[in-house]
């Protein structure tokens, strides 16, 4: 590399950037939220009362210092803002009109009905008040108990400021990049103890996986993942191009908080150690509802996605997306059919039968092939038989930290589990 002429270096750099950019596409960028402005600004707000139609609750969170909320002339009064999801904040800024409150509380709530007081004042003097108050919740409320004047209480602005550093991307995500390790006709989940009893699998992450793998054997073996602390095993049916095995060169395993309501994301539990999950349908006989893997082209979005192989333009890569079920029954690490202990969300919530929300594993594989898909076959058959197996061996503390710091607060983290 040190002797490479500048043009080559630029090309290499460009390739690296393209690769990195490609790997950030797990989540639709339009759903990402900025952390630069008050997290209360423009959010839905409610108040105990208004003085008149010109002083609505929303005027206190509109970012406009010339409009205000004003209450009726009675005690107590409150103004609450819905932040959309559970958020950590460390500052509340109150810009009072002349009609301020001398006694009030700042409160938080997860549901808008039961409140926790995080700050109390009984001798406030109005004006601009910056309160260094820390809390976490979807709802933040000013609860005023004593007025300074004969009028109600009135705020030009009510601002809640995020505890997050600026430029944090509001996407609940962490990831592991786990390259291809080896191929074997083995499956320690479906055919435990029976080497050779499966179609050919391509393995990623833990370097030891075979038909006899157990949680203990995985925990005692190395991984090629970034981070190396993830000794989990991931595997898929091998892809063949004209009968020759092709291994993916992009191998990212995202862990996401999505597919359920934001307030439920805040309740995400760590994936339990030893959990086994199978996604997709190795026995699918058609690209129908029984199959949920998707094929598309990296850098050729116009091709669209399909349950079967797609024809990618020369110079692009065939890519496979597969979302694993994220609702756990809270009891079993596996089940007889290897599926029924897990479920997909229904109506943006985990069903009562599988009440425990865990991070959603999204497997994104990029294969260095393009062109006529009639040359492609999986060891399990056509493209719609794509499936994935996951055997969780993340160290408990590492998994817990990432769920706490990335998933629940909705923060995009990297392989190290930090923003």
């Amino acid at each position, binding site marked *: 590399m040190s002797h490479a002429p500048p043009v080559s270096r630029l090309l290499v750099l460009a390739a690296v950037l393209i690769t990195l950019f490609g790997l950030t596409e797990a989540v639709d960028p339009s759903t990402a939220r900025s952390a630069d402005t008050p997290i209360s600004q423009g959010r839905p707000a409610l108040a105990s009362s208004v003085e008149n139609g010109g002083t609505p609750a929303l005027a206190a969170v509109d970012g406009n210092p010339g409009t205000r909320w004003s209450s009726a002339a009675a005690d107590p009064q409150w103004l609450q803002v819905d932040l959309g999801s559970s958020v950590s904040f460390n500052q509340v800024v109150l810009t009072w009109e002349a009609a301020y409150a001398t006694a009030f509380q700042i409160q938080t709530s997860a549901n808008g009905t039961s409140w926790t007081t995080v700050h109390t004042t009984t001798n406030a003097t109005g004006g601009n008040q910056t309160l260094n108050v820390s809390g976490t919740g979807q709802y933040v409320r000013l609860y005023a108990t004593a007025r300074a004047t004969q009028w109600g209480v009135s705020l030009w602005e009510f601002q809640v400021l995020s505890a997050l550093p600026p430029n944090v991307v509001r996407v609940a995500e962490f990831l592991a990049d786990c390259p291809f390790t080896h191929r074997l*006709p083995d499956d320690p989940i*479906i*055919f*435990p*103890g*029976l*080497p*050779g*009893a*499966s*179609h*050919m699998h391509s393995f990623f992450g833990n370097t030891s996986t075979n*038909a*006899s793998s157990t949680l203990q054997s995985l925990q005692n073996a190395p991984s090629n993942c970034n981070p190396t602390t993830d000794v989990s095993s991931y595997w898929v*049916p091998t892809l*063949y191009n004209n009968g020759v095995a092709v291994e993916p060169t992009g191998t990212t395993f995202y862990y996401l908080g999505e597919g359920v309501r934001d307030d439920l994301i805040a309740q995400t539990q760590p994936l339990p150690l030893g959990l086994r999950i199978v996604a997709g349908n*190795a*026995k699918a*006989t058609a690209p129908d509802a029984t199959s949920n893997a998707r094929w598309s082209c990296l850098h050729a979005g116009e091709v669209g996605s399909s349950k079967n192989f797609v024809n990618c333009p020369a110079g692009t890569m065939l890519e496979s997306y597969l979302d694993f079920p994220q609702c756990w029954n809270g009891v079993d690490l596996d089940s*007889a059919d290897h599926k029924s202990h897990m479920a997909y969300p229904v109506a943006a919530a985990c069903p009562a039968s599988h009440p425990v929300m865990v991070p959603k594993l999204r497997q994104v594989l990029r294969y260095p092939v393009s062109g006529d898909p009639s040359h492609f*076959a999986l*060891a*399990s*058959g*056509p493209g719609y*038989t794509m499936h994935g197996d996951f055997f969780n061996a993340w160290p408990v503390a590492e998994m817990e930290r990432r769920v706490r710091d990335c998933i629940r607060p909705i923060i995009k983290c990297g392989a190290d589990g930090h923003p």
Partner: protein
Amino acid sequence: MRAATLCLALILLTAGCAEPATQVAAQHHHGVAATFSATDAGWLQLMIPMDEQALKLLALVPSRSKNPALVALAAALATAHRAELGRLRDLRTRMALGDTNPHEGHTMPGMLNADGLQTVARNSGPAFDALFRTHLKAHLDQSAQVSRSEETAGGHPSARTLAAALTKSRADQLTALGRLD
């Protein structure tokens, strides 16, 4: 020991043996409630389609091979495989497993798919013999390997015993195949 050997010899060439009653008695003596495991199910649900495919391969021999020794061996193997398949299916019924092939449409080691079978069927004479012997050996090797694993990793004694019988049959069958060289 002699009885078992005789029985296994019969498995190779005839309709085979009933499951030894001593197995059930042994379980009672040890007071262990034997249950079928995922490994038992995986082994059984692979052996059945493997034998079914092998029978289709064996059925090609009489009309395509001109080697009397090979035709005779294929006939004996077909008889043995049909008997074996009967015992495997009986066990599947006992295990309450459905008549499903979890490997349908998959490319499996040692098992010819429909396309591969057609390719073999398009040949005859020595060319057919060579292809047939390659695929037959792959089938015998692979089913022996997986059955050896079932012997050690399996759960229920009935399944492990049947796996042991199958492993022994395969050794004899591979020997018989080798004698054609």
